[in-house]
C-alpha cells in the first residue's frame, strides 16, 4: 500500500515526486514507457517562459511566474543546465503594434520583471540577424532556456535518492475506488494499492481523471513539430518569438543550452495521442516561419526534426487540484506550455495539496541536492587528465560529434535510475545527439549498453519495448539450398 501513486514520469510527475519526497511518504511513480522523460517532456522548446502571454489571474500565470523564479535555485540544487538568456517577441507590422502593446500591458499586469518595448534600432543592436521586417519587440530578460531532459531526469533522480520508487513499462489500465483509497491495475493485471493518486499523465490525464470523476475533462494532443540545427555561434543569442496567435506562441528560434539552434513548434490538433510523426507541411512551416524571424538562418545545418504533443485541455488552463468527486485523486492535468517552466511550482502545489490531505511527517533524511552526470568538459585540463588517470574510460571518446566519453555513458547506465536504451543514454549524456545523429557511435554505444547491462547486443533497444536496434547475426537467415 502506497501513500501516493504518481501516474507519469514526465516533468510534472517527477517534480511532484521530488517535492513529495520531502515528507515521510511511501511514493511510487508509474510510467508506461521504459524511462522518465519519454513523451511530452522530451519534445518541447526547452524554454523557461517569462509569463507575458498567460492570461492575467490564471493559474498558468501564477505557476509560470513562480516556476520562472524557482528555476535558478532548482537548477543549482539539482545540477541541470539552465541559462537566463532573455527573449524577444517580434512585431512585423504597424497594424500589429497595438497587439504588441496589449501584450506588454498584460506582461506588466502579470508582474513579469523588467520587460520593455524595443524599437527597431535597439532590436537590431541586440540581435543583428533579426529580420529587417521586424519593427519592434518586447524584450523579456527573465526568459531562459533549460535542458528539458536534464531537468526531468534531475528531479526524478533526486526523488529516487529520497526514496521514491519508480515502476517503468507499467501502463495503467484501470483505477478503482477502494475503502482506503484507490486500486490501480496495469496491463499485466498487477495491482497497485494507494491512498492518493497524482494524475500527471500528460495527454492521457483526461483518461485517468474520467475513470474516477463524473466531472469530465477533455485533453487534445496539440502536435508541435521542430527542427534542430547544428551548433553555431552567430545566429541568435536570445529566444525569438513572433506575436502569438490563437494556437499559442507561434514558431520560435532559440539557442539551446548546448549551443544548437532550435526552431518550431507548429500547432495542430490530432486525434491520436501517441502519434508523434513529423509531416512535410509541418517542417516546411517551421522553416518558413523561422526564416521570417531570422532570414539568414542556415537551414542546411538542420540535423534532426521531431515533434511532441502538448496536453491541451479545452479550457486552456492548468488543472491542479483534488478532483471534486474523487477524494485524494489530485490532478496535474492540462499541463501544456508553459508546463516545463511551471514544473517546479506545480510540484510544490501538488505537494501542498497532498500534504494537506495526508498530513505526513517531514522526511528528516531529505536531501535537496543531486549531482548530475560528470561532464569532463567542465573540468580544467589538469582535472580532466587526472580523471582519465583514475578512470581511463573517460579518455575513450564514443560520440565524436558531442565528444562524449565511455565514462559518461557508463555513468548514465549505472545511476539510481539508469538509462536502459540508446535514447536513455542520449538524453542523459548527449551521445548520438550531434551532427552525425549517431551514425558513427551507434555500434559502439550498443556495445557499451550490452556490456554494462549484461544483455546481448541484439536485446539493446532504441527506446524500450520492441524497438530493438538490430535483428540478428549475419547469415542467420540465409536460406538453405532448395535442392
Amino acid at each position: 500500500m502506497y501513500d501516493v501513486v504518481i501516474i507519469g514520469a514526465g516533468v510534472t510527475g517527477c517534480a511532484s515526486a521530488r517535492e513529495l519526497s520531502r515528507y515521510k511518504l511511501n511514493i511510487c511513480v508509474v510510467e508506461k514507457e521504459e524511462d522518465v522523460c519519454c513523451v511530452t517532456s522530451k519534445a518541447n522548446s526547452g524554454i523557461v517562459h517569462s509569463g507575458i502571454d498567460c492570461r492575467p489571474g490564471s493559474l498558468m500565470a501564477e505557476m509560470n511566474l513562480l516556476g520562472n523564479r524557482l528555476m535558478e535555485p532548482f537548477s543549482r540544487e539539482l545540477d541541470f543546465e539552465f541559462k537566463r538568456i532573455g527573449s524577444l517577441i517580434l512585431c512585423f507590422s504597424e497594424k500589429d503594434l497595438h497587439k504588441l502593446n496589449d501584450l506588454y500591458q498584460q506582461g506588466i499586469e502579470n508582474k513579469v520583471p523588467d520587460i520593455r518595448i524595443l524599437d527597431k534600432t535597439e532590436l537590431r543592436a541586440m540581435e543583428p540577424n533579426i529580420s529587417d521586417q521586424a519593427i519592434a519587440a518586447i524584450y523579456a530578460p527573465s526568459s531562459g532556456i533549460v535542458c528539458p531532459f536534464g531537468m526531468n531526469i534531475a528531479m526524478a533522480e533526486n526523488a529516487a535518492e529520497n526514496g521514491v520508487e519508480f515502476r517503468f513499462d507499467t501502463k495503467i489500465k484501470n483505477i478503482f475506488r477502494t475503502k482506503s483509497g484507490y486500486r490501480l491495475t496495469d496491463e499485466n493485471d498487477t495491482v497497485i494499492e494507494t491512498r492518493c493518486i497524482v494524475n500527471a499523465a500528460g495527454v492521457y490525464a483526461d483518461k485517468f481523471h474520467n475513470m474516477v470523476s463524473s466531472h469530465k475533462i477533455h485533453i487534445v494532443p496539440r502536435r508541435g513539430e521542430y527542427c534542430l540545427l547544428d551548433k553555431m555561434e552567430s545566429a541568435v543569442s536570445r529566444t525569438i518569438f513572433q506575436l502569438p496567435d490563437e494556437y499559442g506562441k507561434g514558431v520560435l528560434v532559440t539557442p539551446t543550452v548546448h549551443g544548437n539552434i532550435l526552431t518550431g513548434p507548429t500547432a495542430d490538433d490530432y486525434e491520436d495521442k501517441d502519434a508523434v510523426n513529423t509531416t512535410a507541411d509541418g517542417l516546411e512551416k517551421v522553416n518558413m516561419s523561422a526564416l521570417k524571424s531570422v532570414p539568414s538562418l542556415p537551414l542546411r545545418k538542420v540535423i534532426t526534426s521531431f515533434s511532441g504533443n502538448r496536453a491541451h485541455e479545452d479550457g486552456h488552463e492548468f488543472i491542479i487540484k483534488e478532483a471534486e468527486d474523487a477524494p485524494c485523486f489530485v490532478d496535474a492535468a492540462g499541463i501544456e506550455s508553459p508546463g516545463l517552466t511551471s514544473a517546479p511550482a506545480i510540484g510544490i502545489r501538488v505537494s501542498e495539496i497532498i500534504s494537506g490531505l495526508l498530513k505526513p511527517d517531514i522526511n528528516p533524511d531529505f536531501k535537496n541536492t543531486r549531482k548530475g552526470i560528470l561532464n569532463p568538459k567542465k573540468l580544467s585540463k589538469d582535472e580532466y587528465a587526472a580523471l582519465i588517470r583514475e578512470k581511463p574510460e573517460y579518455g575513450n571518446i564514443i560520440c565524436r560529434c558531442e565528444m562524449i566519453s565511455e565514462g559518461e555513458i557508463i555513468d548514465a547506465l549505472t545511476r539510481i535510475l539508469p538509462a536502459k536504451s540508446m535514447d536513455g543514454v542520449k538524453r542523459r549524456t548527449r551521445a548520438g545527439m550531434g551532427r552525425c545523429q549517431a551514425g558513427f557511435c551507434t555500434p559502439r554505444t550498443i556495445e557499451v549498453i550490452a556490456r554494462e547491462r549484461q544483455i546481448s547486443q541484439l536485446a539493446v533497444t532504441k527506446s524500450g519495448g520492441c524497438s530493438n536496434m538490430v535483428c540478428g547475426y549475419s547469415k542467420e537467415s540465409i536460406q538453405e539450398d532448395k535442392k
Partner: protein
Amino acid sequence: MEETRNLTCIGCPLGCSIQVEMENDKITGIFGNTCKRGEVYARKEVTHPTRIVTSTVCVEHGIIPVVSVKTETDIPKEKIMDVMRSIKKLKVYAPVHTGDVILENAGGTGVNLVATKEVLTKTK
C-alpha cells in the same frame, strides 16, 4: 532458339545499353555498345559471367567478431549464394592474417576463400 539479352555495360559511366542476340547459346550479334570494351564485356557476361564474392566469417577470440574474406578469384555468378551457404556456419580462430585460406573449394566452385584482413587475438 533465338533470344536477345539486354545488358548495361559497366566499363564507364556512360553505361551503354547493350543488346546481345543469341541463337542456341551462340552470339549472333552485339549492338548498342560504343566501344570495344563494351563488346568484350557483353561477350563474357552472356557466356560466362563471374563475380568475386566478399563477405565475413566468424572469428573466435579475435579483437573483432568477424574477419572479412573474399574468393581468391572470380567465381561463376550463379554460384554466389552457394559460396554464402558454405560459410554460413564457418568459424575460425584468431589470429587470422591477410591471405590465410579460410575455406578451400568454397561452395564447390574450386576457388578458395581467403582472409582480407588481420584479426589479432584478444588479449584480455
